[in-house]
């Protein structure tokens, strides 16, 4: 089904309310706690930036994600503990979505070099819809969180069956073999959740940020500046690219790398800037992401 006018209206309403007076729901964290972006093409809250992009009042190609990222990392340093994790998580999800969008919008895909190409426009429309969808589900998730929290405080009657009724329980039919039982135990003991709040969606579990960071570090430590394009050369999965991107952010946080981008959308050059780096640093890298 194509996006209906009604749908657009609803999105606009949701998005428009975000920057200032979001009623205590999803969008308030950016708007009220206030990560702001200061770019030549835009100056204001991050969430407003997203809103404008989704309303197509601002071109994604005008935005230098690296600059936004730089600002965000600076902003993060002013936060502590849980807030930092929460916001980092939030930001990275959106950044990955935007990055994904940019890659699909900007990078030549086969012959589709011409930005006016109809097919490319369609791809952008789809990605645009996808960002809207992402925001819609994010808002819905706030409702889920609220309901689950409220309901977890409720108490339903659930008591031990009185003995006189227990005798009427049908006799147990046991169909589990010893081996199946052991397999069930194994299944039950298998950790279901990486015990880091809210960050397990930032990576594909099969790709280790630490491993990718090791690769990135080995390329950079040769001393020559390397472009991001070179860093992701040969990466055959989107997940690997994302992991290397995240690894770079981590390395930047450790002041091990510096970035240089001469013009918007120009080549992103990464330079090794660490003064005393030991491979031990690598061990902890990506720990935030459970990798």
């Amino acid at each position: 089904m194509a996006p209906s006018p009604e749908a657009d209206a609803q999105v606009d309403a949701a998005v428009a309310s975000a920057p200032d007076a979001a009623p205590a729901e999803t969008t308030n964290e950016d708007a009220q706690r206030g990560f702001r972006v200061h770019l030549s093409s835009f100056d204001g809250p991050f969430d407003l930036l997203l809103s404008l992009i989704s309303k197509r009042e601002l071109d994604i190609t005008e935005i230098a994600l690296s600059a936004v990222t730089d600002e965000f990392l600076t902003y993060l340093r002013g936060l502590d503990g849980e807030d930092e994790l929460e916001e980092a998580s939030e930001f990275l999800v959106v950044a990955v979505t935007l990055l994904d969008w940019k890659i699909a919008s900007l990078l030549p895909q086969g012959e589709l070099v011409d930005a006016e190409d109809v097919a490319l426009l369609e791809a952008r429309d789809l990605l645009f819809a996808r960002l809207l969808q992402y925001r819609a589900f994010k808002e819905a998730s706030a409702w889920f969180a609220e309901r689950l929290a409220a309901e977890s405080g409720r108490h339903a009657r659930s008591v031990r069956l009185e003995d006189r009724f227990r005798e009427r329980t049908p006799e147990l039919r046991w169909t589990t073999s010893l081996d199946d039982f052991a397999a069930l135990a194994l299944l039950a003991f298998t950790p279901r959740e990486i015990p880091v709040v809210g960050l397990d969606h930032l990576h594909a579990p099969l790709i280790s940020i630490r491993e990718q960071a090791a690769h990135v570090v080995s390329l950079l430590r040769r001393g020559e500046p390397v472009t991001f394009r070179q860093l992701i050369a040969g990466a055959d999965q989107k997940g690997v690219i994302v992991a290397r991107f995240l690894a770079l952010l981590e390395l930047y946080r450790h002041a091990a790398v510096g970035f240089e981008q001469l013009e918007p959308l120009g080549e992103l050059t990464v330079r090794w800037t660490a003064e005393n780096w030991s491979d031990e640093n690598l061990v902890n890298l990506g720990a935030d992401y459970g990798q």
Partner: protein
Amino acid sequence: MASEQTSAEMAAPAAIDGTDVESAPAGIPDEVATERALEAILMIADEPQSVVGLAAGIGRPVADVRRALAALVADYDGVAGTPRRGFELREVGGGWRLYVRAEFDDVVRDVVHTQSPAKLSQAALETLAVIAYKQPISRGAIASIRAVNVDSVVRTLLGRGLITEAFTDSETGAIHYATTDLLLTQLGINSLDELPKISPLLDDGSRGFDDV
């Protein structure tokens, strides 16, 4: 089997009616007896009781059971001069169940020590929302909406019993997931219709993304 049981039990309420009439001079109408029998069943119920299941259990027509449940809700809520009870009857997760009334949750919390599981992460919540609105949906389709790998989160949700494997696509072999009644119960709603409406947004945007 259900029919056999039903006929067997048809006798019971009748017998109860008889004894009640003896002890209550004015005579107790059948519908009141239905309410009392429902109360008894709800007292031992471990999970929400469907109207149909209750009707079969006490051998009464579904319509009677519905009426009696509504009367009990009003009774416990104290809308007709009766005391507003410390408990209430709620329709949640596809059935009826007795709950402590919300204003007594704090009092009760100190007495019982229930083990509540850890809160869901933001990622899990968002994935849950995607599944709730788009079910049945494959993991690949979820991942393309969320733009990230969702395997571990889906596992968490499965482990919590909030989603279930609905079916496996015979062509692609992709497992499709749907939400469970347990989710409804934990949300405190009775059906998916009670989810907030955001559906107009959700029908596009998935086109063109491979259902990996």
